[in-house]
């Protein structure tokens, strides 16, 4: 699947993208890393990874006007971890207004709930409602690492539970999808999610 038009991974200040690129390479995809508006607009698929802190990531996106570019994209778009959280309306992490592709809020796991924070490790996703999860059975295991989580919303396409807290493991609105877990680190199940994203034609684009 290395033919053009290309898969573009958004280049910004949040986190390590090498593992996402390695996962794409394992699927036979040579992704381009770019923050150039024209390159992003011409992409067949856009992946928006992220590890780090919400407010500094948002500040960077706003100052570079990447926020407007990303919001205007029409092709299939996948946010991962912090990327997904930045696609929500608001994050409690340093009270940050986010991009707002999804109507969910991002809140912290309770520090007094007795839960270890971050939520770190393998957990099952449930209530799968999207072709992103095709071929994965009803309760696939994915690798999560996060201290904040997106609330449940009508746009939730997969749920996860940590302690008593139910949250969005994945969200979808129009061409925008986001996953809280790391598909690039979730073994064969994660690879399948990426493959489904790359081959799903229902959202409009094609690879």
């Amino acid at each position, binding site marked *: 699947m290395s033919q053009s038009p290309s898969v573009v991974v958004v280049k910004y200040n949040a*986190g*390590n993208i*090498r*593992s996402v690129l*390695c*996962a794409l*390479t*394992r699927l036979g995809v040579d992704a381009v890393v770019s923050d150039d508006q024209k390159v992003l607009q011409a992409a067949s698929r856009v992946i928006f990874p992220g*590890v*780090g*802190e919400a407010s500094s990531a948002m500040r960077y996106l706003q100052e570079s006007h990447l926020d407007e570019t990303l919001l205007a994209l029409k092709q299939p778009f996948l946010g991962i971890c912090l990327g997904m959280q930045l696609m929500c309306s608001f994050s409690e992490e340093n009270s940050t207004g986010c991009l707002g592709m999804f109507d969910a809020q991002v809140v912290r796991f309770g*520090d007094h709930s007795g839960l*270890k*924070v*971050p*939520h*770190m*490790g*393998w*957990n*099952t996703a449930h209530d799968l409602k999207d072709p992103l999860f095709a071929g994965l*059975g009803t309760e*696939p*295991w994915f*690798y*999560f*690492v*996060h*201290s904040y989580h997106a609330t449940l919303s009508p746009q939730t396409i997969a749920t996860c*539970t*940590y302690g008593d807290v139910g949250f969005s493991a994945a969200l979808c609105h129009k061409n925008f999808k986001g996953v809280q877990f*790391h598909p*690039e*680190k*979730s*073994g*064969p*199940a*994660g*690879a399948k999610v990426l493959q489904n994203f790359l081959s799903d034609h229902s959202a409009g684009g094609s690879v």
Partner: protein
Amino acid sequence: MLAKRIIPCLDVRDGRTVKGVNFINLRDAGDAVELASLYAHSGADELTFLDITATIENRGTFTALVRRIADVIDIPFTVGGGIRTIADVGALLGAGADKISINSEAVRNPAMIGLLAQEFGSQCVVCAIDVRSNAAFDCARGPGWEVYVHGGRTPTGKEALAWAMEAQDRGAGEILLTSMDHDGVKGGFSVELTRRFSDQLSIPIIASGGAGTMEHFAEVFTAGGADAALAASIFHFREIDIPELKIFLQKRGIAIRLSQ
């Protein structure tokens, strides 16, 4: 439900695994990438690579190895050993490691934990703590433990639980807790140590040192409250097979990810 994690640990020197490895079906038992790949396919939840390279000149070899591991391995992995600077960490994360572990340097310069958490996020900062029981640190709650550095050779005079709590407050995302009293003896993890730390800390604890049987893993997850358990030689020498271990733990009612 969040699964308890099983983590094989590989010691690497000059880019090659060193602890004797007993996999007859490996072409090259010293090749860390091949061994790591085998573990990932057999259901390991994470991997840890410790660089025990003798010379500074060979440190670059480790970073190159980390790149090769990241190309192939699709589960999270932690790297550690000899990390001293933010630049060391930047290079290892840039090469594709998910987390780094720091030990002696964190004791020498505790502010390093905070700097790393700020720069790269707590989720990738594992504070490794090697401890031995020491009656001088006993308290009303029970026995106490002292922190050792330099591969467990040098006592620091620091009480271990207080140090772990400081590391947590400074931004560590996880504690890799090794009982030197139990390490290599195969008589079981230190359940008492793990339980005390797990109850007192709000970040995940990886128990290490002492694994000998599958029962030992069940014990450290239930009685010990560990979030993850790390072991080396029992996996390398196939005394315990990871798929069998995971089925055993699941039958004991422990949340475990079975390979898909």
